[in-house]
């Protein structure tokens, strides 16, 4: 592919020429044309792609987390397996797969087996609607944002079930804490998300990205976008149970929290779901506030904008997501863990009022057209 055709591709992408050509729509088209095999190939590619994404990003994120943690603490981190330890996670994964899968004798076995799958299911379902690039999205549904909020309920159920069915007090307390925390912070995350929905006038994730053609909502929304960005990042950090909000698995008090009694493959499901969740919420943050796959543009600087268009949309999405992931990992080595009462205080007495005021302010801004750039999506 020459540079010219690449530029053409990027410009066409930025102008929305490929809008809404999702994998599911291609499948439906192939089906309508009567080419069965193509439709099945599309379905297999979509499922295989999701599986590859889950595995690869899990391996990469765990490695990055360990390396970053080490460098924040002036250590080297994994260094032995491969160059700078890049195969460390592969080795760990193999070890986890080979481990014995222990189910406690007094556990509710069926529920014990079901819980990790529920957690994983909630995560993978969100991966299916994220727009990775204008031509790469599994399916774009009208209710995208609502869907993402809704399926997180399965994740909560997975954690609660895992904690209960283990028949262990640590697991149970960890699950209760996780449940209470996720339900509480979901409210703030939703309030922050509604601000973007107000501005873009759509629930569909692809259309939300399209609406940021003239500027990303984080700064185009006159301040309210930035406030809701901060609220959203804090709330989703709590939703995925990461430090400083990791009391559900506080090692010093609860052993390992809700997954204390899990081992082997089932433990790795919980573990993987946690890391993919980090990718998911960072991808959502990038999609809602940082323009998704939209390149970075400055006003009328045609030369600069053209140069930015050279970078493919997938790289823009991955780059923005990586920045947010780095931010969340940075939190972990910066803030100490919150106590339960501090956690609830932060949500109900700080974030929630700010979220409501911010939503109201956003409504005023949208109603009176108080923002500098024109809206493109009606």
């Amino acid at each position, binding site marked *: 592919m020459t540079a010219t055709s690449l530029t053409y591709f990027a410009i066409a992408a930025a102008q929305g020429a490929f809008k809404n050509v999702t994998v599911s729509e291609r499948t439906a088209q192939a*089906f*309508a044309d009567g080419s069965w095999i193509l439709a099945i190939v599309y379905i297999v590619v979509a499922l295989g792609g999701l599986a590859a994404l889950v595995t690869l990003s899990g391996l990469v994120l765990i490695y990055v987390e360990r390396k970053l943690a080490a460098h924040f603490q002036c250590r080297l981190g994994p260094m032995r397996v491969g160059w700078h330890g890049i195969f460390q996670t592969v080795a760990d994964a193999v070890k986890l797969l080979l481990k014995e899968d222990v189910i406690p004798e007094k556990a*509710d076995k*069926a*529920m014990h087996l*079901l819980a990790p799958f529920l957690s994983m299911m909630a995560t993978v379902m969100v991966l299916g609607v994220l727009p990775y690039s204008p031509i790469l999205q599994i399916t774009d*549904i*009208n*209710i995208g944002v*609502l*869907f993402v*909020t*809704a*399926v*997180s*309920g*399965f994740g*909560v*159920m997975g954690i*609660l*079930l895992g904690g*209960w*069915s283990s028949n262990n007090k640590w697991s*149970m307390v960890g*699950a*209760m804490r996780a*449940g209470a925390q996720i*339900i509480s912070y*979901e409210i703030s995350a939703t309030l922050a998300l509604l601000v973007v929905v107000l501005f873009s006038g759509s*629930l569909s994730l692809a259309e939300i990205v399209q609406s940021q053609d003239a500027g990303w909502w984080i700064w185009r929304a006159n301040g309210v976008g930035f406030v809701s960005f901060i609220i959203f990042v804090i709330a989703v950090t709590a939703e995925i149970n990461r430090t400083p909000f990791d009391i559900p698995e506080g090692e010093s008090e609860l052993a390992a929290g809700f997954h204390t009694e899990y081992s082997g493959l089932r433990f790795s499901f919980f573990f993987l779901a946690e890391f993919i969740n980090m990718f998911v919420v960072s991808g959502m943050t990038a999609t809602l506030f940082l323009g998704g796959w939209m390149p970075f543009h400055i006003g009328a600087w045609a030369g600069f904008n053209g140069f930015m268009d050279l970078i493919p949309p997938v790289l823009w999405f991955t780059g923005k997501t990586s920045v947010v992931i780095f931010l969340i990992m940075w939190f972990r080595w910066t803030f100490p863990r919150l106590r339960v*009462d*501090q956690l*609830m*205080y932060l949500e109900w*007495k700080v974030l929630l009022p700010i979220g409501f005021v911010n939503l109201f302010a956003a409504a005023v801004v949208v109603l009176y057209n108080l923002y500098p750039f024109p809206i493109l999506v009606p």
Partner: protein
Amino acid sequence: MIASAIYTVLFYAIAAGTILLALAVVNTRKLLRAAVALMGALSTTAGLYAMLDAQFLAGVQVLVYVGGIVVLIVFAIMLTRSGELLEDNPTLKRKLVGAVISIGFLVSSVGAVWGSPFAIASAGKAPANDALMIGKALLDYGPGGFVVPFEVISLLLLAAMLGGIVIARKTPPTGQPFTSGGDLPGEAEVYHPLSQRDDETGGRAS
């Protein structure tokens, strides 16, 4: 033709799943399993809505029932620690009364559904963006709008929320009746969530 065949197969699969899960809700002896089966039944119902192109309704079904109601039920089960229903042999009288009531309910509900004419819009099509239409209808105060029921429901929810807070709070503010009676006098100067509360006064401000 193949598409409609797939659609039919999917419909019957989801419907059968819903019925089986609903049976599991009432037949299992473990409360938590009943809650999980309920979650499954409600999710498959959302699947039926999605097949009818009512995407918004399907999303709200999952959001409210799986993320809200079922999680609440699971929390209640966990807090009360009554995981199993232990009654093995109900008396004959209870069995008879139960059978009569359930058969009566079955007859009356089937009769009601059978007897009422449902206007099926066979030629109608679901709107392309149902979330938009529902939102407009909910906040419309003209004919065909639902703004009054919408606001009345929000008032009802507010009242329920306030009731929950009043019941749950341990320390009543001084001079207020109808609270459950707390262990500390006067909440305002006592409860500091961010301060350390492990001194010998029990967190009481001196």
